[in-house]
């Protein structure tokens, strides 16, 4: 059924949520080698994963691929529910992003100026943002203008849907600090959106 939904449509992918209460069944099937169940997991988490990685690393696609490869390796031994699975996956993604940043900084053929420019959050022009409607991409561009820790915590709390305790473990802060940072980040994001005219 899920496979049919994956194969259906040629122009645009079916992006409806695919996992709900049946997450544990899907996870168990994927752990047993069911490729369709694994594709279901992938489609459920990949958009949030890719958006999170776009915020914290310029090599989001490569890091996402590495993350999934590691998930494939560790999937048979994973134990836990949907929340734990997401926390595990985003922890892997963060580690791979850090590794990618280190290897990028060691790469000799990349000019330093280019590296720094890629690591800095891109501040979009306010006029350009005002012309765009509210879309995932425009909001992502807005979030990239936030400080790194603010943007990351917003992505993990809102996009990945993780609890404050899980986010605290991933970013190395206390749950209280995560909550305070998330509030500050949201206030700053609202202010930025008002100035950029993204919101209606």
């Amino acid at each position, binding site marked *: 059924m899920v496979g049919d939904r*994956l194969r259906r449509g040629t122009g*645009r*992918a079916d*992006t*409806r*949520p695919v996992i709900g209460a049946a997450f544990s069944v899907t996870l168990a099937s*994927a752990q*047993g*080698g069911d*490729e369709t169940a*694994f*594709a279901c997991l*992938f*489609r459920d988490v*990949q*958009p*949030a994963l*890719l*958006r999170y990685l776009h915020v914290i690393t310029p090599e989001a*696609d490569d890091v*996402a*691929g590495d993350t*999934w*490869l590691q998930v*494939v*390796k560790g999937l048979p031994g994973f134990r836990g529910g949907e929340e734990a699975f997401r926390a595990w996956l985003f922890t892997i993604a963060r580690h791979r992003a850090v590794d990618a940043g280190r290897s990028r900084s060691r790469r000799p053929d990349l000019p330093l100026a280019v590296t720094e420019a890629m690591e800095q959050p891109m501040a979009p022009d306010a006029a350009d943002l005002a012309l765009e409607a*509210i*879309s*995932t991409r425009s*909001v*992502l561009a*807005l*979030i990239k203008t936030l400080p790194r820790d603010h943007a990351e915590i*917003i992505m993990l*709390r*809102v*996009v990945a*849907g993780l609890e404050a305790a899980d986010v605290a473990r991933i970013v190395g802060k206390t749950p209280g600090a995560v909550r305070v940072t*998330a*509030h*500050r980040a*949201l*206030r*700053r*994001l*609202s*202010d930025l*959106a*008002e100035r950029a005219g*993204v*919101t*209606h």
Partner: protein
Amino acid sequence: MPGFPIPGRPGGEHDEPLLDMIIARRALPPDAPQEMHDLARMLAALAGPAELGELAGGAAVRAAFSQAACPVGISSAARRPVRRRRPRHRGRDRSRARLAVAMVAVVAGLGSVLAAYSDVLPSPIQRLAHAAVAAPAPPGSGSDRPAALGTGRQVPHKPRPSSQSASGPHHSASAAQPSAQPGSPTPHYSPLSSSPGHRPTEPACSPGPWRSPSPPPKASAHPSPLPSWSQAGQCTGIPTGPAAAPTLNPYVP
């Protein structure tokens, strides 16, 4: 944005319940500020469904999953015995390595013993071998006593021309080997007493069961406390010191 709380602005903590609701993706109350509604709408767009390009890597990930689940086209249940067999291979390799090490050690040991008996080792090592496995003593060594002396073992020694020439004027083949004549019994060497101050009543080198019919010569006024050993490893009873004129050797005429 009038009235919207930002950090450092008074009243910033009043919106915390609304912010928590936005984070938890719950519906805001209708009387919430418009800014909060806008923020909730932005974040809902951020957490929206997948766009087309975001699932582009799905094929590669699925291929990696099928490879990991079934690397050679067999089921995962069939792969389990292969994993279990791995420690057995490791154990076999270890036993082979141990066997090889043992064989090398045996060959090295045998070679060393052969070299020691062939007297081709350097002098210190040869002396060590002489003490350990009763190999021939190195040429020119000061100690002519075999290492097996303390244990009372007889150690056959090959006579050496060089050592014989260095044994002094009193040493001669006839004196050192009185029973070398055909048909005569081999003298029996009794072990020396190692207690200090022990003066032997008879020479340590006694002929054993076969004794000379002639009585032993009288001890001189300054008898040597211990008989000396010839370079050939035979007891002559001839002291090697400067005051060694009197002899206890019954075979010396």
